[in-house]
């Protein structure tokens, strides 16, 4: 019994994308990891092949695919074992803000480029002194001379160096209610007063450019506001379910990949007597236990995907999935490395990159502690 009703068209899309990634993307990944950035041409290639923003409507250049196409794209990208080509972030987290809240002019202007890969996007919420506490942010957006002037600093921004378009959250200093003060604003690359800060060194995500962004008297046209003035907080809240779900999908796919690689290694690696490592009972138990947890995560996640695709509000379950599955990916990565012996601490070991990469998942898109707070609140505790 499968929970998700993938059609033949979905399956073909998955096969096409997998073949494309195999051929066009995977051969370059080691270089991108070393470079600490992924080149823009890769985004364009992916977009032109039809694997970016599958949900965008045809009138804006997309294929108008249902949510399962997003799921497939996110899973297949996760299986490439790198994070630089952050297509799920772009396609299913950032661009949906433009799709959902942008006016016709904004959609016409930006969406085709987002789909083709010519416009790489980022969303800038987190600030150096306000992590998961969105209401605590201090960046300001003031109307001046018919323009909007942005001041503030953002950090941990994925695609921060590559981004051609940044959606930034900032507050009107004149509005005392933190939740009503926030707007979302579109800032294009090259806008005076918008500067990239340091390209941050981190444990993993090496092929992805994570950066600080600085806005100093950065003036943008008033029409670059997304949605109503002051509606930023509610827009964020509305889209967080999908962001967290997409994070869970990525973590689930990463856990599955790490375990799959490990299982193959144990099956195919003999000890000195020629007995495969997978014949040792303790190894078997480790693999069975991890496979069980991965299947549990998958069943829970698929049920959630089905609910999300059907338009259900699944705040509690999404928070639960985000924390449990990202923790799962982390735990699996830790336990699997032990099965490789000394090879397990070499970067040549095929799951070590994953170990470093998945460690951020329990932190981003709202820390797992925030997820539990949210779940507790919505469970009436």
């Amino acid at each position: 019994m499968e929970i998700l009703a993938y059609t033949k068209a979905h399956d073909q899309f998955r096969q096409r994308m997998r073949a494309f990634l195999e051929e066009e993307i995977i051969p370059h990944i080691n270089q991108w990891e070393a470079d600490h950035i992924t080149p823009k041409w890769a985004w364009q290639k992916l977009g032109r092949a039809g694997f970016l923003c599958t949900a965008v409507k045809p009138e804006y250049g997309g294929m108008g695919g249902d949510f399962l196409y997003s799921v497939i794209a996110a899973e297949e990208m996760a299986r490439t074992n790198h994070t630089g080509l952050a297509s799920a972030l772009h396609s299913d987290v950032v661009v949906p803000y433009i799709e959902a809240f942008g006016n016709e002019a904004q959609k016409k202007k930006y969406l085709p480029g987002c789909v083709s890969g010519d416009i790489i996007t980022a969303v800038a919420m987190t600030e150096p002194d306000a992590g998961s506490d969105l209401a605590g942010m201090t960046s300001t957006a003031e109307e001046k001379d018919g323009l909007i002037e942005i001041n503030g600093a953002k950090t941990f921004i994925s695609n921060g160096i590559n981004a051609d378009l940044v959606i930034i959250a900032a507050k009107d200093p004149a509005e005392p209610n933190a939740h009503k003060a926030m707007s979302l604003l579109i800032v294009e690359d090259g806008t005076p007063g918008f500067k990239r800060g340091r390209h941050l060194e981190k444990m993993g995500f090496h092929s992805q450019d994570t950066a600080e962004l600085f806005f100093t008297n950065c003036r943008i046209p008033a029409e670059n506001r997304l949605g109503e003035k002051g509606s930023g907080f509610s827009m964020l809240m509305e889209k967080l379910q999908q962001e967290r779900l997409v994070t869970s999908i990525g973590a689930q796919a990463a856990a599955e990949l790490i375990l799959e690689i490990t299982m193959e290694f144990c099956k195919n690696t003999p000890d000195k007597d020629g007995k495969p490592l997978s014949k040792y009972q303790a190894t078997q138990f480790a693999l069975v236990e991890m496979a069980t947890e991965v299947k549990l995560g998958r069943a829970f996640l698929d049920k959630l995907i089905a609910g999300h695709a059907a338009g259900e509000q699944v705040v509690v379950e999404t928070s639960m999935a985000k924390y449990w599955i990202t923790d799962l990916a982390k735990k699996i990565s830790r336990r699997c490395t032990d099965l490789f012996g000394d090879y397990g601490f070499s970067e040549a070991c095929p799951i070590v990159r994953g170990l470093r990469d998945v460690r951020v998942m329990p932190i981003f898109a709202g820390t797992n502690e925030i997820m539990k707070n949210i779940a507790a609140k919505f469970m009436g505790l």
Partner: protein
Amino acid sequence: MEFELDKSQKEIQKAVRDFTRGQFDKDLILEAMGSQKFPSAIWKKAAKLGFSSIHTPEAFEGGGMGLLEYVLAAEQMCKKDSSAGMALMLTGFGSECIFRFAENRLAEKYLPPVATGKMRAAAALFEPGAGQDISDIRTTAMEEGESRVINGTKAYVPNGASAGFYVVLCRNGADAPETSQNDLVLMVVDADAEGISIEPVGPTLGAGLMDFAHVTFENVWVSQKNQVGRTGSGREHVLAFLNEARIQAAAMALGTGQGAFDRALDYVRQRRQFGKQLAAFQITRHKLADMTARLDAARWVVYRAAAAFDINACDARTAASAKLTATDAAMAITDEAVQLLGGYGYMAEYEVEHFYRDAKTLEIFLGTPGVLKDVIAGAVIGRLK
């Protein structure tokens, strides 16, 4: 029983702590991280103070202290920086075999350069395909007159590309069955001997200031004078060495955990969210309490194992159990530290991310949990009828 450090132990602890505060330059360490760039300058100073060969006898220019003092030093070093601590405290890796089991002549030749910061050592024990197991050694040391000729490959040798000499576990002659346990011999081999080729492991998950390499010996001629102990005693010596080295690794894990804990505690006391310090949230407090309890448990098993070793009362179970507990604690604590620091926890600049990677490396190094459990079970269950 007496659980207090004595005066000289407290002095050592303080001296190492002061040293790390003065000498461990965070920026330099972060810059070198991951490139296997060994911190030579710091090492020379540490060697001068006798810290990195602290348990090598004074006769060979070491600190002349016990394993417990080594443990205290390693804890302090790794607390200040886990990667620097590992690199510095493992410079003499394998020299224990020489000062404990070899004739003085060998120790006098090989150990002073290590103790004085001129040369690194490397025990070369495990072999490709055998995991972390010495029950099936295929490297041979055939007698040829007054020499032995060594052939074989050793895998994941710490300091493998940088050591001045190797302490190599070999089978004595090719005729004995490969799994014979009474036919092993330890040989000290100069790294510049002809026939040695080195394949660096390359970047590693942790231990970013030191190197690992696979080392192949192809018809390497070594004088019989370089033999450690008697022929056939190799297994016994290496098992004793593994006990000692596992306690050392456990101490590094303890320090790594403590260092991550200290940073997390500082952070949550400073950082405010939702209008109050993170340290005011009950869940943060409980995480810190869990970390504290794990540190307490790790500390006392590690100290106890080292103290037992120093009075010749440490068996394989005690050492393996200490490493299992301490590295498990280090993993849990560094993981939680990363989490408590949030986004900063993932950034190189805030250090705890490499403590996490080092803890994971220590969890594998010298015995994964699975290997350690095999060892412990063997000891507690004994032989089955």
